[in-house]
């Protein structure tokens, strides 16, 4: 099945190397407000329809340390509902939504367990 592409940083995270500070290579701007954090994985799920963004999030959360954040950029309108609902069902924190540079909504999640 088709998967969402991870950002460069996210691919780095998959290799197990320490995550580098944000240098503008990522595909999304850092979310504002409580979600603001320089060192986070951003999944690119543009063009992926539900439930793929949530599936991708579920696959990649294992690579995130407890207390750290992961974001998913998704233009499917269902993601706005399904990312927070997934957080509720899985016990993670939904930190909010902010637009990426291209305006695509980016949803930020903090791993809780």
């Amino acid at each position, binding site marked *: *099945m088709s998967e969402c592409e991870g950002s460069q940083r996210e691919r780095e995270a998959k290799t197990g190397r320490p995550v580098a500070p944000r240098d503008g290579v990522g595909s999304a701007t850092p979310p504002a407000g409580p979600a603001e954090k320089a060192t986070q994985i951003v999944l690119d799920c543009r063009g992926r*329809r*539900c*439930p793929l963004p*949530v*599936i991708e999030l*579920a*696959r990649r959360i294992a690579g995130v340390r407890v207390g750290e954040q992961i974001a998913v950029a998704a233009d*499917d*309108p*269902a993601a*706005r*509902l*399904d990312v*927070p*609902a*997934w957080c509720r*069902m899985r016990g993670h924190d939904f930190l909010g939504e902010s637009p990426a540079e291209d305006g695509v909504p980016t949803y930020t999640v903090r791993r809780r367990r």
Partner: protein
Amino acid sequence: MQAPRVRTLPRTCGDYSLGAAAARPGRAYGRGVAAGTRGGYLDAASAAPLHPVAREALLAALGDGWADPARLHGAGRRARLLLDGARATVAEALGARPDEVTFCGSGTQAAHLAVLGGLAGRRRAGSRLVHSAVEHSCVLHAAERHEASGGETVSVGVDRLGRVDAAAFAAEVARPGTALASLMTANHEVGTVQPIAEVVASCAAAGVPLHTDAAQAVGRLPVPAGWSLLSASAHKWGGPPGVGVLVVRTGTRWGSPLPADERERGRAPGAENVPAIVAAAASLRARVGEAAAEAERLSALVERIRATVTATVPDVEVIGDPVGRLPHLVTFSCLYVDGEALLLELDRRGFAVSSGSSCTSSTLTPSHVLEAMGVLSHGNVRVSLHRETTAEDVDRFLAVLPGVVADLRRTAGVAGL
């Protein structure tokens, strides 16, 4: 009031209906359904199977009520008599007067007429329309039209169970310039019953007429009193499709949003479909008679579905109010599952259900009801039962569902995520 008296069916007529059913066994109620049964049809909230009383009345009225009821000749007068009888029957079932009942082409049209007509009649009071965020799309589309014509609309949110905040609704209704309020009796997607009694009181206090879309409630639950406008749809209660009911209470200001027509006291244009209306009325009377017993029976089956799905399907969210709900309807969402794939796979196994997931909608957006509630929208299934649904049908569905969901998750490579 007397129901329309239908002529005894000619033998050929009755034989035809039996013969037709026998000649086409098990026709298209889901491909896997056993011949001649409707056991796998679990989408009554879209359209309930025709009530046997409706079928009988329809066939008789096709023979007797085909003429134009506005004409003065004998055939016209016979059609008029049937129409008047049907109107009296529907009025009685809804606790209204016959002259308050209008027949039109669908529940959607009835809601359009209720909302736009109610707003037109109150133009001097203002142009605000207050409605809940989970109204049927027919009400929301009427609201869009109102807004496009320069009116103001206010959508009041709901809680996680889909119930509107009665205090917030009251506060919006009380604001100056409010012309009309619209709150459905019960939600068509998640079954949650709305606090109509509280909203009736706050509307009365503010002097604002209330429209209630009772499409899912009529024939299943007692319709609460106190509304000014009501809309309903015959094919939701077991009548034929193509009959909508609009009730405008005496004293309610209403102005037609459509070009003038003398039919239906000027409230709905075009010649009435008398045979279908007669069938709708006859089946409504039958439904009301059996509603209490059916509500108890179906509500227990829905409870069984709610409990069993939660216990047997991992990562499922059962949606809507577990207590204050319609007796015949339940909705749940399965994590990581594509709603369209789930619907089609259930259809392949002989079960017809509906879905609020975005992949099943023409616009590829999730249901506005699920969105307003903030619940999981993918992998969504709505199951709605009817008078022919048996406990065995429900058990068959519950036996098949966990395997179908597990297979879809396995195929998608998401099992155990």
